[in-house]
């Protein structure tokens, strides 16, 4: 039934992922990694081993197990530090995901940096998680949200930011790579521009970190967030990089255990960062698991990852462009491995249902990016997103399914 591909992938990372060894998933073309990635054995087995042999609460016990767990937890923080290129591990705050991380910045930094009439700049292509926290901040502080539009090809240029930025700009919150159409933002230049007017830059790296090497010092950003479950790691864990000097001047966000220096009913004082921003028991095993996911990626290396995914992306774009009545959102030169399509005759939901019957998992809908949808004047799209485990065969299978959609809907 499938159009045979003439390409063969050089390495088969698919074998590293247990989900594809399940009988019912043997032929699954999983093309929804932008929503969440599958997890390799390496991560799952090591997390399991940790639970089975080294688990205890961290930071608090004198006994052996707790010391072991604390070491593993802090080692994970160090791995994340190196992964993000932060200069010290105290700049890494472990959160429950990127959404909590962004909300943390919007409260702890935003509440004091933003005042009435100040401006917060977002791009048109943000994920709801990088919109709503800033809207809520805007409401709290009576600040204005300004939006930078993309170019006709869906790329972003610095000039558009320059036109909108002003002395009243206090925060620029932008995605590194758009989760719905794949645009890559010129984050480094935006940081330089922002710092000229004294604004801080918060970068949502959820869709960048799995695909391109990230270095917060080279980018020059003030905050950078990523999330574990899109990075071949477990759910419930994310990381926030924050520039040390900023973190030190920020009040806590959540209150609880661990983030204090001393508590009394009369007066409570708070710990130094990162502890100040990690109230309560962290997702200990989540952090350890994210550390293992980083090990896994490092072992493959971003050179290889980028090479693999670019090859797939080019093949995908080429095959899609052959289908009549199918439109790809955005025709920028460079993009992340995320492609949103529109078919004249079929609604994304119907496309996804038919593709599912072909063993192809894609996402239909607004991808938590309604403003992006509105920009393209569509209700939703069918989104194809790539991961390490994908191969040419998956793309062939997708195209096969899309041809079927055309047969049904004309």
């Amino acid at each position, binding site marked *: 039934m499938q159009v045979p591909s003439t390409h063969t992938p050089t390495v088969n990372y698919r074998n590293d992922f247990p989900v594809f060894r399940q009988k019912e998933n043997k032929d699954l073309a999983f093309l929804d990694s932008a929503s969440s990635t599958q997890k390799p054995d390496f991560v799952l087995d090591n997390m399991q081993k940790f639970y089975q042999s080294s688990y205890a609460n961290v930071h608090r016990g004198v006994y052996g197990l707790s010391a072991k767990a604390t070491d593993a937890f802090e080692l994970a923080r160090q791995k994340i530090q190196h992964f993000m290129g932060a200069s010290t591990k105290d700049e890494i705050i472990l959160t429950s995901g990127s959404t909590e991380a962004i909300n943390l910045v919007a409260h702890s930094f935003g509440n004091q940096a933003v005042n009435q009439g100040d401006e917060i700049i977002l791009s048109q292509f943000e994920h709801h998680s990088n919109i709503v926290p800033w809207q809520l901040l805007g409401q709290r502080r009576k600040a204005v949200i300004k939006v930078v539009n993309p170019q006709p090809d869906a790329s972003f240029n610095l000039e558009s930011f320059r036109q909108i930025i002003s002395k009243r700009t206090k925060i620029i919150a932008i995605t590194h790579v758009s989760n719905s159409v794949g645009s890559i933002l010129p984050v480094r230049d935006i940081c330089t521009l922002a710092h000229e007017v004294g604004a801080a830059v918060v970068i949502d790296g959820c869709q960048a970190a799995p695909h391109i090497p990230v270095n917060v010092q080279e980018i020059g950003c003030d905050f950078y967030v990523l999330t574990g479950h899109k990075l071949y790691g477990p759910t419930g864990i994310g990381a926030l990089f924050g520039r040390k000097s900023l973190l030190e001047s920020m009040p806590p966000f959540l209150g609880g255990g661990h983030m204090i220096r001393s508590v009394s009913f009369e007066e409570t004082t708070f710990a130094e960062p990162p502890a100040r921003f990690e109230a309560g028991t962290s997702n200990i095993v989540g952090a350890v698991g994210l550390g293992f996911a980083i090990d896994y990626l490092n072992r493959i290396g971003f050179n290889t990852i980028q090479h693999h995914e670019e090859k797939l992306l080019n093949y995908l774009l080429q095959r899609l462009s052959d289908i009549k009545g199918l439109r790809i959102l955005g025709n920028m030169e460079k993009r992340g491995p995320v492609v949103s399509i529109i078919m004249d005759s*079929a*609604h*994304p*939901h*119907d496309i996804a*249902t*038919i593709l599912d*019957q072909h063993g192809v998992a894609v996402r*239909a*809908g*607004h991808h938590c990016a*309604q403003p992006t*949808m509105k920009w393209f004047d569509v*209700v*939703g799209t069918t989104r194809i997103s790539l991961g390490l485990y994908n191969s040419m065969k998956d793309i062939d299978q997708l195209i096969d399914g899309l041809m*079927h959609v055309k*047969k*049904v*809907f004309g």
Partner: protein
Amino acid sequence: MSDSLHELYQEIILDHNRHPRNFNKITPCNHQAYGHNPLCGDQVTVYLFLNPNNMIENIGFNGKGCAISIASASLMTEKLKGKSVPEARQLFEHFHNLVTGKTNKTDLTEEELDYLQPLTVLSGVSEFPMRVKCATMAWHTLVAAIDSPALPTIKNQIP
């Protein structure tokens, strides 16, 4: 094409999707409601003209959505024109059971099939749990329209 997919996208459904019936804002109109599925962004507005006997004298809809939701809305309007409000509610209950798989189409008597037709063409949805909402969105919005307070100005407006 798998059997269940074939069942789902029957020609009559594709036809109602391509050419939805009663796809307009009716005049006069005394009840209306807006429905919306935040997960996919689909939206529908149902317009009703209920007469004093609680009868659906006219019904229309518009909106954006997938084939299942548009076809379901279209079929619904065809089915309900001239029905009473209690009848409409009862039909929704039966229809709901059908698309969620609580009732199996093959278990229905001739009489029941007759009572429900042509809504039974949507029974294939029961094999696609993630699509049940698509099939029922228009119906939920219908109920909201019925339960919403009447709009006297529109009712009395001069066309």
